[in-house]
């Protein structure tokens, strides 16, 4: 994953807000990277660019050598479904669907048949230790369990890249550490994991930290 001179501007009526002002960042396969910085510094925005949730206003974003910065919406969606797994602070699970149905969602959009989906979704839930809770709805699960369902969902399509936006932000420290352990497991498997955080204990857990300030990398160059 590489970002080259990536910028992102949001338009709020007449005003343009520059969330990113030119970021160069390289992430190698197998990296475990913490993206830190104060609130509003552009961490989430950068994460969204990396995973194809947004397109940069200028500059390029390369994923596995492909420039995705000008991909059409449908192509970006495909890419999000197959190459990237997202984990969010608020979990973002479908409240009326069971854990296993939530995990199966990316598999559905990737076009897998129904039986395969259920099998794989169950395997992913086992993997995060939630096999017995497969048929529970998010409302019946604790925060930590919800976040593990979200991680299972992120893993469903076996993506090389996992992007987490403050995944421990809604959890107590103990549960947060468990979640981080899970992420480390993913890295050990050879996946790339990027975690946005402003909690020092989370950053300390990773191999590499990059700090954003006002839409720029603090040390200027993150190509590493």
């Amino acid at each position, binding site marked *: 994953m590489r970002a080259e001179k990536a910028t992102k501007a949001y338009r709020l009526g007449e005003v343009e807000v520059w969330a990113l002002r030119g970021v160069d960042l390289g992430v190698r396969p197998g990296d475990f990277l913490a993206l830190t910085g104060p609130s509003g510094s552009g961490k989430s925005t950068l994460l969204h660019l990396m995973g194809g949730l*947004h397109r940069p206003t200028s500059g390029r974003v390369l994923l596995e050598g492909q420039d995705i910065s000008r991909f059409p919406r449908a192509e970006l969606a495909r890419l999000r*479904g*197959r190459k990237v797994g*997202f984990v969010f602070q608020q979990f973002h699970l479908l409240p009326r669907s069971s854990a296993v149905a939530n995990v199966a969602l990316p598999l559905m959009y990737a076009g897998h048949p129904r039986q395969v989906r259920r099998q794989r979704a169950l395997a992913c839930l086992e993997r995060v230790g939630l096999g017995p809770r497969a048929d529970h709805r998010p409302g019946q699960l604790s925060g930590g369990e919800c976040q593990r369902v979200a991680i299972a969902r992120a893993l469903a399509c076996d993506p090389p890249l996992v992007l987490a936006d403050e995944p421990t932000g809604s959890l107590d420290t103990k549960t947060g550490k468990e979640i981080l352990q899970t992420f480390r497991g993913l890295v050990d498997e050879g996946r790339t994991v990027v975690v946005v955080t402003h909690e020092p204990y989370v950053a300390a857990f990773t191999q590499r930290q990059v700090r954003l300030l006002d839409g720029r990398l603090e040390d200027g160059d993150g190509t590493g």
Partner: protein
Amino acid sequence: MGLAERILTGLGALWAHKLRTGLSVLGVVIGVAALVAIVSMIQGATAEISGQIVGLGARTITVNLYPTRVLQAGQAAGFLAEQISGELRAAAAVAEAVPISNTSGEAQVGFNQTSPLRVIGTTTDYARLFEFWPAQGRFLHPLDEGKSVMVLGARLATELLGPGEHVGRDLVVNLHNETLVFHIIGVMNPRGSVGNYDVDGQAYVPISLLQELSGNRYFSTYILQATHEGQVDEAVAQIEAILDQKFVDLTTTTATVAGRGAQQLIGAIRATTQIAPYTVQAQRELILAFEESTRTMMLILGGIAAISLLVGGIGIMNIMLVAVVERTREVGIRMATGARPGDILGQFLFEAVLVCIVGGMLGLLLGWLAGAIGARVGDWPFVLSPLPPAIAIAFSLLIGVAFGIYPAFRASRLDPVDALRHE
């Protein structure tokens, strides 16, 4: 995603908001039910009425003669029923011409006991025209003209005289203030009513006798049949030519209007008196006029029903727009996990279509029920041709797509990050 799964997913989403779904469905139900009921009722009523109009078939032409409107009694003598029917039948495009004159009388069925009786004066050709045949004895014959003989319709015979052999018996009938003894020469087979002719419930006597009794030998109705349906216009033209010529001949022999052509004379008579000496009415015209008015009615009422369906569609759009806003986060979650804009569009569109199909089915059922009740109340046959329900369902499907597409499109254009942030 397979169809079954789409349906399940869609139903799940609709089930989660029962009240909202119920209201959207209701709009469609009312529209479709109204459409189906209206079409069914109009078709039923139409079948009933056009059954009466058609009767003898589209080849039929009815001619009424009123010779004394324009002629003196002496001149009108040229309009004897048998003679006219002969001349009309001679026209190339006319296959049958039967004079009919009807009146009512009373049959004496017991001591001081009478029963009302509908008496038709006609000729032997009547039986052939109506395709009904004697069960006992025979129908009228040219040699019966002027004689007081009578043929009874099947139901009439049983009602008046009970079952059994009636040929040869006499029946006393009060007609035109006279009491006559009729000799029964035949009883017909049951035929069922033909159009609005209740042929089984009438008595038949020679037309000449009836006209003599009524003192009006000149007023007559003729039922004609063109050689075939395509010849009706031709037949009407020929009949008019024959009758015009007849009036002209009879008028000009004693014409007092000098210097005018015969045709102009007829025209003048018609124009000044406002009463034609005859009318020619092709059954087909009646049928066409009736069908035309039915079609108009169908269009108007169907249009109103269609508008209510349209309103139902707008209701769906309104409710769906709300649903899209409410489910923005869901859209964001789906997009973040790989749903393409087309997947989101399809999902919402499918839900709208599902609402319309369910509403369409229920509406069909309700409309069918209303149509059946209407048929019972209005006493016409219950008719529901497969086309209107098919159209109603297709139309509600169309409504679903037409009004679902905009909200669905809005959902599909949402920005995934904004959608996820939505409260």
